[in-house]
């Protein structure tokens, strides 16, 4: 059986490597994409996004020409899906509704007929985008504080309840960094953009990221009075081992659903599910291998100091 507490050096090293890799991905993304740590979608930075389903094959150049002639010189035209899908995506700066209509009409006359029931377009002004981004940061902050307060309150009967809250938040932040790093990597490799859906997934990961921690801490809370006199390290390790079956079984069940949707689900939902999958996996790791050993380190550090003081 793994000794979660004794192997903490190994776990901390793995966590460190994961964090470092994530930071590298974020920095590379920032270098590649003009200071964007994640590729930001128009939800947050403003702009217009067209997803166009043409009836017949069309070429990229003629699509771009229509946009350039309408004053959108910086339009980025990309093919979506396979060649015979005839689906194209165009990103450009914020366009007024009249502009959007004119571009669509021009595309129909000059490029080819658009199947409007299978197309969509979305335009966001940059001010509203900036506001969403600000609120998003606030939401993440609020979620962290709420969870910290909740754990502090619900473990108020154990010694040093604040520490339980703090190590949970540390684990959560590590989890968030790893999830962000993964998304930055996918942004570089697959062009995934951080949109409102991504934010929802991230907030969900934060919400679930304390579930494992709470279960283990709950067992520690129960075991402290039962095994009075045992070293804290032993109590903690016992608690982890007693609950690890449950962590793995739950994880497995959530993964069944997520992997199925990833493999067979619609393409729009894939980044959303992938973020949750990575977040959940890293959550189990950070809970058992970062939060719990960190709590032991903190308590023992105190203990040693007390011994030193007693000796002197």
């Amino acid at each position, binding site marked *: 059986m793994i000794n979660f507490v004794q192997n903490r050096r190994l776990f901390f090293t793995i966590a460190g490597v994961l964090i470092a890799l994530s930071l590298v991905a974020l920095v590379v993304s920032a270098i590649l994409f003009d200071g964007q740590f994640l590729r930001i979608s128009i939800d947050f930075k403003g702009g217009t996004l067209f997803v166009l389903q043409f009836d017949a094959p069309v070429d990229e150049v003629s699509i771009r020409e229509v946009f350039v002639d309408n004053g959108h010189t910086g339009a980025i035209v990309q093919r979506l899906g396979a060649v015979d899908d005839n689906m194209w995506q165009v990103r450009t700066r914020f366009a007024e509704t009249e502009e959007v209509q004119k571009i669509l009409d021009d595309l129909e006359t000059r490029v080819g007929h658009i199947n409007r029931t299978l197309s969509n377009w979305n*335009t966001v002004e940059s001010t509203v985008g900036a506001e969403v981004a600000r*609120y998003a940061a606030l939401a993440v902050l609020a979620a962290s504080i709420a969870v910290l307060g909740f*754990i502090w309150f619900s473990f108020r009967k154990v010694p040093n309840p604040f520490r339980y809250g703090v190590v949970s938040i540390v684990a959560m932040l590590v989890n968030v960094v790893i999830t962000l790093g993964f998304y930055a990597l996918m942004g570089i490799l697959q062009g995934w953009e951080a949109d409102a859906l991504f934010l929802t997934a991230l*907030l969900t990961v934060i919400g679930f990221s304390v579930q494992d921690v709470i279960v283990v801490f709950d067992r520690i809370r129960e075991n402290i009075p039962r095994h009075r006199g045992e070293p804290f390290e032993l109590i903690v390790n016992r608690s982890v081992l007693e609950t690890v079956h449950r962590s793995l079984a739950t994880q497995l069940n959530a993964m069944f*659903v997520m992997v199925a949707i990833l493999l067979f689900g*619609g393409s729009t*939902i894939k980044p959303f599910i992938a973020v949750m999958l990575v977040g959940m996996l890293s959550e189990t790791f950070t809970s058992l291998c970062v939060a719990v050993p960190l709590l032991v380190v903190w308590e023992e550090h105190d203990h040693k100091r007390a011994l030193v003081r007693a000796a002197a």
Partner: protein
Amino acid sequence: MERRNIIYFVLILLLAAVAVYGVVWQQHPEWVTNLFFWQPASSRNLDFQLGLDLQGGLQVLMVADLPEGRTVGAQDMATARNIVENRVNALGLTEPVVQVQGTERIVVEIPGIEDPAQAVDTIRETAMLEFATPPAGVTADTLYALRELQMPISTTHLMSEAEIQSTSAMTDVFLFTTELTGGELDSAYVVRDPNTSQPLVAIEFKPEAASKFASYTASHVGNALCIILDKRIISCPNIQTSIPSGKATIEGQFTYESASQLAVQLQYGALPIPLKIESYKAIGPSLGSLSVEKSVRAGIVGLAVVFLFMLIYYRINGLAADLALALYVLLNLLLYKLVPVTMTLPGIAGFLLSVGMAVDANILVFERMKEELRHGRSLKRAAEAGFSRAWTSVRDSNLATLLTCLILYIFGNAFAASLVKGFAITLAIGTVVNLFTAIFVTRTLVRVAFGAAGEWIQKRAWLLGL
């Protein structure tokens, strides 16, 4: 004890029957749907409400277009919302949604619309009516020319002091001084001139504006007062006498149709504040259904694996958990229909995921039960210990999830991130239903089973997955 379990068991069966009826049956008699008093009377039903991303449609986010530093009153926003709603309803489309979002935004959602361009045009027409004094030194001929050419002019309405200063300094701009606006109108209707039988638009101001209008007309007899619609002059009549009644007529070269159109616009459509379209989203109606079908099918495959896993890993307990899980799915779907919750693609994904997570509470209990059995407890004692000891973990982790839902909801409510909001609601409903099915329902099922055949099960350890 025994008897109470049987009663609970029967009640759970009844609930399951109601859920099956509500979810699986497509048609429901009127007296059933009439029970849903919290739904608007016109659209009480047991259908799934599909979000824009699933059935396609148009979402327009508008913001009050005011100069820097000016804020909008909640009353003005509510009025503007009603006006926009009237206009959208005039398009005759099914179930449009018009809502105020935050302090200065209005979001319009029109599902299943074929021609978004026309809808946008209707929504964005402002019909801003102003009564304004022409700039000093402008002759009647100039006013006539401005009107005939329908030249856009400037008015002081919603301008700051500094802007008025700088604009009036410009020689090539006609700056009209706004005295009253359409927001202060009480009513507008068509009348005919008693002498010429020419159609006229009669207007009545609200009492407060009426006294303002009275004192203004009293002090400006002989001067022109221009009636301006959307920054274009309609007419510039001369003030003949003071008008104390707050009633006035607008003369223009109206036909009966154009007069009544203006009257309707003024009555229902005079926006108290100008609105600017900030975000505009059009989704093809077949795009979403394609994607959702695939994802739902994929989710069902995943769930089948979850059911199988529980059965194989926890055997008889797993069977109880699977039954509770089936009830969980039914109750969730029933609540989505009853509340009603608007289904979006991430909402559905969140629901499927929550089914996967819903077994967590069962797993906590069953693992605990196994532990107790290994310590040599009897089957019934182990079961009770499993449920009561696991409860604190289940409670705390679910409360943490509910807390996150609340934050997501607040965040989603602050602006048009309706996807986020829908997701938060589905997740919260799932969490609460889960507490009920995974703890109460599973416990009742396990107690009934152990009560009926406890000894028989105890002798066959493999049934418990030990």
